[in-house]
């Protein structure tokens, strides 16, 4: 399944899903205007951006980060601070938060250049904790343990908020999907698959790693800023490891390295979180179990497994395409 042709047919099939999903998401408010349902979906959209931001680094470039909250949290605090202390509206603070995400991403990229896999895992696991410590140290500015609250909401109307988040999520993900299928994406994947070979073929891997971190940081930052405004508050809890898991869970449920999967994975994650609302004490437990199951038994992701099964059983959209796919699969195997 690694030839460019089969990837292409896969992408075609996925684009159809993409279109269908986008339309469904955009018409949801026609059917329900329930505040609760829509606010859950807003969070799903935020997780989708957050998950995709992890995926571009972990799934596409092959740099597994355990501390994605670093970008998310810093951007959230920056957005909150700009909003509270300078009175800037969300439409300014969220992109500025994203810019801070880029900054943090570029800083985080420096150790990743020297450190391979597990060493970088250690660093990325520890960093958010250090930052949380800094926040506890300056309660006058950061609000300390209680955090900052009283932020301007995205909009008083949940439907406006829903559309803002949906359009932001769809735009981010489509942008990232385009990026991944471009030349830059190909270079990211070549770094993931074999860094030495990539370097030997004349690719400046350092520059592209910085780029990958910057992109990842930007989208994680946007997600962080949006969530801060949606919740109207921010606390050091955003630097918790289990929060990084939200991103990884969203990306991995949808299928690591697919970007678009993050959207589906995020909706599942949000649904999972909400259905456990009355069982809050099981939430982290269950998401950790789900994550282990996915990584151990479904490395391609739950959603991808289902869509592939569907293609297999009911055929693709046209008989010609099906024939083509069988031919490609036959030559692959």
């Amino acid at each position, binding site marked *: 399944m690694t030839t460019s042709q089969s990837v292409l047919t896969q992408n075609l099939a996925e684009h159809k899903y993409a279109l269908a999903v986008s339309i469904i998401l955009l018409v949801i408010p026609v059917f329900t205007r329930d505040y609760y349902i829509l606010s859950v979906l807003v969070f799903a959209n935020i997780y989708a951006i957050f998950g995709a931001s992890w995926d571009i680094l972990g799934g596409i470039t092959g740099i597994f980060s355990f501390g994605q909250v670093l970008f998310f949290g810093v951007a959230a605090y920056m957005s909150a601070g700009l909003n509270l202390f300078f009175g800037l509206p969300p439409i300014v603070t969220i992109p500025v938060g994203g810019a801070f995400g880029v900054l943090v991403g570029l800083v985080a990229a420096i150790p990743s250049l020297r450190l*391979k896999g597990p060493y970088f895992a250690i660093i990325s696991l520890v960093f958010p904790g250090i930052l949380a*410590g800094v926040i506890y140290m300056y309660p006058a500015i950061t609000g300390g343990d209680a955090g900052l609250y009283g932020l301007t909401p995205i909009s008083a109307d949940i439907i406006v908020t829903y559309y803002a988040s949906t359009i932001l999520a769809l735009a981010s993900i489509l942008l990232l999907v385009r990026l991944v299928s471009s030349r830059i994406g190909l270079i990211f994947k070549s770094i993931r698959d074999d860094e030495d070979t990539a370097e030997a073929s004349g690719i400046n891997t350092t520059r592209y790693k910085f780029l990958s971190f910057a992109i990842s940081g930007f989208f994680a930052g946007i997600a962080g800023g949006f969530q801060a405004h949606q919740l109207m508050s921010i606390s050091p809890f955003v630097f918790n490891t289990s929060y990084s898991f939200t991103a990884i869970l969203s990306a991995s449920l949808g299928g690591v390295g697919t970007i678009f999967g993050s959207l589906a994975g995020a909706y599942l994650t949000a649904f999972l979180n909400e259905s456990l609302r009355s069982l809050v004490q099981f939430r982290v437990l269950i998401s950790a179990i789900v994550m*282990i199951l996915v990584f151990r038994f479904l490395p391609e992701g739950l959603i991808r497994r289902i869509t592939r099964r569907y293609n297999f059983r009911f055929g693709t959209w046209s008989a010609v395409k099906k024939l083509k796919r069988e031919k490609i699969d036959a030559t692959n195997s």
Partner: protein
Amino acid sequence: MIEEIVISALILGGLYALLSLGFSLITGVARIMNFAHGAFYMLAAYLIYSALSWGQGPAIIVSVALIIVISLVVYKLLVGPLREKEAEAALVTLALALIIQEGVKLIWGPDYKSIPYVITGYVTIMGVRVVTQKLVALFASIVCVAGLFLFIRFTKSGKATRAVTQNIEVARLVGINVSTVLMVTMAISGLLAGLAAVFFAPLSVLSPTEWTVLFQFFPVIVLGGLGSLKGSMIASFLIAFIEKTVEFTIGGGFLMQTVTFVIMLVVLLVKPTGLFGKPVMRER
């Protein structure tokens, strides 16, 4: 004050040595980062707490045995099959640590618990009163470390372990049963976590987030070099000494962590293989 620093650093170093040896062993041999190692230590302590009604001796034996079994099951079911993908394996063990944390919270509750000393009483060394348990713990740690070194250096299984550490494929070629070696290594790693709980857990209070002691000994592992036993050994006492010096002279729990994290960062950027580490994780 110097006496206090030395003694408390030796004891903290003993804990770090015991834990980081278990972690380094499995990292070096199987090339797996077991982020659940700290969680095994915590779980062992909680198991001892629960089994205390059977008497302390049986409680300790049963708990340590259980931890060994659990670590073997975890290896067989979750980590072993992912051995080729180190990042995924690390992620799975981290998720496992969180599962254990939440499980402990559900079973034993979020409040603090403590387990009794193996030996009570205190002695006075160089004018500093030291609880006997601390000395016992330090002694036990030294014995365990020495035992592990002797095992690896002088027994046939130890030789096989070293061979697998150096090169898995070649070890397989010369007829070593690699999967058995890996299982034995995992069992020893679990045993070390259990023993650390027996001797060191009574010295502090237990809470469901106790597994984050893992983050505390990351600097040790990095400074010693990933997968290097000798390195982790020396780095344990070095880092413990630095931590305690900072704690006693400048003060502040958070600062002490920051200092060691900065050391870790500098080591990673200047000499990522640590003091004695070979770049084990890159050779595949």
